[in-house]
């Protein structure tokens, strides 16, 4: 087609979003509206979804500038619970640091950190019941850590070693832990969204009391699965919590490519008739309170909730990513909602239940804990040291029972192995 424009009509123009700051740009977050902590109202968990309009466009915040917990959303947790929350978040960060380094040392092929987003998974998991089912994306390792899943098991999976429960079949960090209410992670984005709804519908259909929660990034909300899931959830009033972790970036694409220039992600809930809350994702108490509220709504058959966690992906997308190639290095440090661990730490200090010395000691202790776990996991092998799984497990689990064509291929593979003379062939 030519670009000819009829003389009497103005030419159209295509809008292609562009992030505010590229590498080298000075960062100014004046455009990010941060309402005062405590200013958002807290509705009843059974309120009609249509009444949540301003909550879907606002920002629920609990921790104020003086590190106090204020307003109707303050969850009034005991100091012990707050310290546990802080510890869980710090453990996630220590784990991430160590595993990122392990990847850089060539001990595994891949890793993804959740730096800056620890509250989103840890506080949410703490607000749910232990037997509620989570359908996470790849950046909610905090759920496993909060539910006391073994760090060694996590590392075994990352190393695809002899101890890996998933038999070396999955890319590192694609955990699966059924007994911990942690659904098998898929590489395909947003597929877990309708699956979580189905799990929740099944629970409701069976008269169970358990609920489901699922997580995706803001980028993944563009997938068709997101729309299907929200439609199903509202139609059947499924007891499910949708978490959208808006960390501003989907690899190199800023949130504008998921629609953030025009509206909020919580506002998507409005059109579906789902309760929508937009919250400060770096405020662990806001995450806890919103999740507790949404869980109560789900548990009383009042329907689903979508929570947009407004946060920032402080580091690269993965070990395969270099964020300095597409965004300003100042973005993370200047982020107006700060760091979730630091904010909770300062809150505990402000209420006289913590101090910097204890915090430093805890960081050391957690680093040691992770190091010990790493040593234990590495005793089972690391990826760089050849294959650790019995070779014929490659064919296990395609089907419940192995059909003839897989048995034939398995025999072929073992014959190849015999011919190669390598030592790790036998089960």
């Amino acid at each position: 087609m030519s670009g000819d424009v009829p003389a009497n009509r103005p030419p159209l123009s295509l809008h292609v979003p562009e992030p505010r700051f590229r590498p080298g740009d000075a960062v100014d977050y004046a455009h990010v509206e941060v309402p005062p902590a405590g200013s958002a109202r807290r509705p009843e968990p059974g309120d009609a979804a249509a009444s949540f309009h301003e909550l879907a466009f606002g920002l629920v915040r609990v921790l104020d500038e003086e590190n106090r917990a204020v307003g109707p959303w303050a969850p009034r947790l005991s100091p012990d619970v707050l310290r546990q929350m802080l510890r869980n978040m710090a453990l996630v960060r220590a784990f991430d640091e160590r595993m990122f380094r392990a990847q850089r040392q060539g001990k595994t092929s891949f890793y993804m950190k959740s730096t800056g987003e620890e509250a989103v998974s840890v506080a949410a998991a703490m607000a749910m019941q232990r037997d509620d089912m989570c359908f996470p994306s790849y950046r909610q390792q905090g759920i496993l850590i909060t539910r006391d899943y073994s760090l060694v098991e996590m590392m075994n999976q990352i190393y695809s070693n002899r101890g890996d429960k998933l038999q070396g079949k999955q890319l590192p960090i694609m955990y699966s832990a059924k007994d911990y209410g942690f659904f098998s992670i898929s590489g395909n984005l947003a597929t877990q969204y309708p699956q979580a709804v189905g799990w929740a519908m099944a629970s409701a259909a069976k008269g169970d009391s358990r609920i489901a929660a699922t997580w995706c990034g803001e980028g993944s909300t563009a997938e068709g699965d997101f729309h299907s899931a929200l439609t199903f959830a509202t139609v059947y009033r499924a007891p499910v919590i949708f978490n959208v972790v808006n960390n501003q970036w989907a690899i190199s694409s800023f949130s504008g490519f998921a629609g953030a220039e025009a509206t909020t992600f919580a506002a998507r809930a409005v059109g579906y008739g789902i309760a929508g809350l937009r919250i400060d994702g770096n405020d662990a108490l806001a995450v806890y309170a919103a999740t507790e509220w949404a869980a109560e709504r789900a548990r009383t058959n009042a329907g689903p909730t979508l929570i947009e966690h407004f946060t920032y992906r402080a580091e690269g997308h993965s070990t395969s990513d270099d964020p300095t190639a597409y965004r300003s290095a100042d973005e993370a440090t200047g982020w107006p909602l700060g760091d979730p661990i630091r904010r909770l730490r300062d809150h505990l200090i402000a209420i006289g239940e913590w101090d910097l010395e204890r915090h430093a000691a805890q960081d050391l202790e957690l680093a040691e804990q992770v190091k010990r776990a790493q040593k234990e996991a590495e005793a089972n092998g690391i990826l760089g040291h050849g294959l650790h799984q019995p070779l014929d497990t490659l064919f296990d689990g395609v089907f419940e029972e192995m059909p003839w064509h897989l048995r034939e291929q398995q025999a072929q593979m073992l014959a190849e192995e015999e011919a190669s003379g390598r030592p790790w062939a036998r089960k």
Partner: protein
Amino acid sequence: MNMIQAINSALDVMMGRDDDVLVMGEDVGYFGGVFRATAGLQQKYGKTRVFDTPITEIGIIGVAIGMGAYGLRPVPEIQFADYIYPALDQLVSEAARLRYRSAGEFTAPITVRSPYGGGIFGGQTHSQSPEGIFTHVSGIKTVIPSTPYDAKGLLIAAIEDNDPVLFLEPKRIYNGPFDGNWDRPAKNWSAHPGGAVPAGYYRIELGKAATVREGGDLTILAYGTMVHVVQAVVEEAGVDAEILDLRTLVPLDIEAIEVSVKKTGRCMIVHEATRTGGFGAELSALVTERCFHHLEAPVERVTGFDTPYPHSLEWAYFPGPVRIGQALKKIMKD
């Protein structure tokens, strides 16, 4: 029973036996399905076990997978196989892979029912045979019945199976067998032995072909509607063909195929689906690899053409008696 009644009966039997079996899909609830396959089930088992869904195939399959992970045994329906593509990611990346990727922690014991195939003036989007897309996916089973008796027994086995099963129902033969002669009066199932269907529980093992006609001169591999078309052509031509109804494409009954082709020395494969990359290619390769020294003629494939399914030109497209008859002459001449 006709095939719709047999399918309805299978669902009824399984819902009666197992509280975890549930039926979901577009129009399957109150209305009983656009082909009536789920008629009466909602009234009998209630709305939480048989329910209508929004029009989103991603959602139908994704939700069914989640229900399967919970411990239920969902039987979702995709109204036409032509409309299964939006759900492809959920089927291929999720249902088929869940057991493997979680080392057995989670499974997807779902049975996806879907009417498929042409011969009904369904045009481009009510006639397709997409089985070859799914037979290429490791972790999913593909089943296609050709009689009411088989439809019920295979569907019960599929629902009981702990792996995801794609259950494709040839809608051309829902009401009666079809011999490919579209200009002759339609038959119904009452005169066909496959129309005799027990009311209660029985199952037909997945992965087993049926020999619908014994013969010594050649082996014909077919499934779904084409089983009946092939049968009629063979009788009319007076060829002593052995006809195998594969019934399950994955896992395939390779033993039955090998035994038959080694006996007859010739093999013809017939399916409605388009030719290139179709399941016939896999069958042809397997027969050639495993029966090479017994073959007296090249393996012959009779299929739909490599075009979208046409509307007015349906009977020129459909692999009917003329195309099959010519292929028969060709393979017997060699």
